[in-house]
């Protein structure tokens, strides 16, 4: 058991390392000059450009840069975003620390994915169970048809249509933007009112606002996965309902609702719990689309903005997002594997490569 977990962790560490090397290699091939983050490349003197390179540390060999990055990352310092970096005359860097950026982005992506999964289970479990108890009924066929259609729908299409019609045209729900769970302080709101450019939205917060702004993203997220989950729950329920213990429960005189809820559904739902963790990789990919459409400052949007800026390739941010996303996926998969292990101890002997296999569904 311990050996199994250790082997998984070793594989995970190797994977994260390779991902960081590839991310670094792409950075070395990018034609844009990182000195452009500090000086105007068109007009600056060669000495100024060389100084900018020296300050960013990009004048050293790639191996040294990489080693330096890994060393600092291991000490918990992910660096400062190049897009915001500035240097005091004595050489002290200032700017947005990447650790903070990624942490706040992770919270946004986390609330999107978590709420989406909760909504998904709230819809898929009752519908799947109901469809299984009445196979070939109208509800069953309807839910099957809807799920076939939902599988073929791009999350971008769902998101854009919901935003356009529900959000923008009918004004039923907020069409974009994000509110933090905690309320912003009066000083923060005042600062935005006074100093931010006009049309900057005033920071909002509180659980109510947070959930209200996330309803459309959650629906988009849930709709992409609901078909798959519903069909799996239905199939599992059909299997479980044939089991002898269900017959025994019925023979004992338990009500049909109790049979379904306490006896059948409990057993049918076990693999679904592990499946949710396994889908984490794909969820991050889907979240990238949803964050873009609805303007949520999550991991995906952070990455795209770091890539799409004038200078391109904000290396510290991109490396950090890649590492954090990969680590999150790997940890979730490990949890899924351990849950599966708790249910079925033969797994450890049967397969040695579960982590990698399931991570593969990333996006």
């Amino acid at each position, binding site marked *: 058991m311990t050996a199994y977990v250790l082997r998984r962790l070793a594989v995970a560490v190797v994977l994260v390392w390779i991902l960081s090397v590839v991310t670094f290699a792409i950075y070395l091939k990018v034609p844009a000059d990182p000195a452009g983050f500090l000086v105007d490349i068109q007009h600056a003197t060669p000495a100024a450009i060389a100084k900018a390179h020296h300050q960013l540390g990009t004048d050293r060999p790639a191996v040294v840069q990489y080693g330096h990055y890994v060393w600092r990352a291991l000490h918990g310092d992910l660096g400062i975003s190049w897009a915001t970096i500035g240097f005091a005359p004595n050489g002290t860097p200032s700017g947005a620390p990447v650790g903070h950026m990624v942490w706040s982005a992770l919270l946004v992506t986390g609330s999107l994915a978590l709420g989406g999964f909760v909504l998904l289970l709230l819809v898929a479990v009752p519908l799947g169970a109901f469809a299984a108890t009445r196979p070939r009924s109208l509800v069953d066929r309807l839910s099957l048809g809807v799920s076939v259609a939902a599988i*073929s729908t791009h999350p971008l299409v769902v998101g*854009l249509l919901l935003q356009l019609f529900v959000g923008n045209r009918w004004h039923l729900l907020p069409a974009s933007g994000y509110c933090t769970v905690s309320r912003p302080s009066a000083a923060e709101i005042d600062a935005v009112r006074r100093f931010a450019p006009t049309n900057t939205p005033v920071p909002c917060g509180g659980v109510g606002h947070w959930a209200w702004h996330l309803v459309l993203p959650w629906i988009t997220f849930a709709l992409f996965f609901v078909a798959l989950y519903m069909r799996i729950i239905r199939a599992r329920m059909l299997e479980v309902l044939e089991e002898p213990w269900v017959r025994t429960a019925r023979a004992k005189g338990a009500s049909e609702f109790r049979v379904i809820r306490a006896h059948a559904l409990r057993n049918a739902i076990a693999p679904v719990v592990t499946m949710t963790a396994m889908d984490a990789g794909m969820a991050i990919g889907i979240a990238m689309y949803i964050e873009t459409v609805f303007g949520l400052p999550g991991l995906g949007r952070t990455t*795209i903005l770091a890539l*799409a800026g004038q200078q391109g*390739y904000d290396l510290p941010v991109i490396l950090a997002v890649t590492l954090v996303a990969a680590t999150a996926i790997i940890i979730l998969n490990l949890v899924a594997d351990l849950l599966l292990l708790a249910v079925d101890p033969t797994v450890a002997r049967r397969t040695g490569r579960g982590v990698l296999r399931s991570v593969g569904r990333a996006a």
Partner: protein
Amino acid sequence: MAVSNPLRVPQFDAGELDTPRPQGQWRLAWRRLKRDRVAFGCGIFLVVLVFAVGPGAPLYGKLVGHGPNDFFPYAVSVALRPAGPFTVTWDTAETADSDPFAFTHKPPPKGTGKTLLLLGADSQLGRDEFLRVLYGGRVSLEVAAGAALFAILIGVVLGTLAGYYGGLVDAVISRFTDLVMAFPLLLFLVMIGSLFSYGITRWTFGGLLNQGVFQLIVVIGAFTWFYPARIVRGQIQSLRQREFIEAAHMVGARDSRILRTHLFPHLLPPLLAYGTLLVATNIMIEVGVTFLQAGIKLPTASWGSLLAQTWGTILNPNPYNPATTQPWLTLCPSIAIFLTVFALNQFGEGLREATDPRSVR
């Protein structure tokens, strides 16, 4: 010398006797597919679609007399709202407007012809939305089908090597497959697509493909070959131990001959079915990557860029304005993407069931 028919039993020749001739697997599959009405209908839709976006797009362009990148400012109102479906507009690229405060366009000089925009104008530029959906579909399908072919090609080579030779080769290739599977595909697609705009991005093969198509084909293919590789490896591993392979070895057939004549025919049906599903996935990927500004670059239309048309780009999203927004521009590419992906998924499923020898239908 054998006595022919010594008992004088009445004889039939082969033509008269209705012996059930063994049917080829393709014939059987075709019959099963025809019985599956949804899959067959989707197949017909796909054929029509391929003809519509292939030779159909330039033919329609000839018919209405303009191309997908021509501007028709008369199809956009003075308040910058694109015209809706079934618009007949003046066939000119410039307005005759002289008064900037007028509420309507000034009619063009006499002698200007008219032209039909079947689905209206695509944006403030006033291009033909229907033609752009057709040409965009061509680009999206090129990317999707090309990447699927490329992925299957890599998958077959690596899967065959791993499955047939086993041992160390298998171990190395399997680890490599696991590694590629673990890559966050979308992240790398966006990274590569949004940063590089030279070299492979510009390859068009003498105008055969649009710019950026080949790059997307290569990158998507390079990150999605693991699934066909696994299918091929599994198939070959299970077939390798069967008697007919043993027999072929025994009579002295070389490896290349065994692979070619005994193993590959078994791979074709599952790869065909899986390839169709892969094309559907690739269309989704192309749409997503182009929407995120990392795929096909404007002015070339693709379904992803048509979807992004109203929404804008991530650096400057278009603010929503009910007076200038045309919901058709989001609906048209949405419907096109949905129908195509749906048809490909259903057809792929049908194909898989029809070519499965264990299928009961």
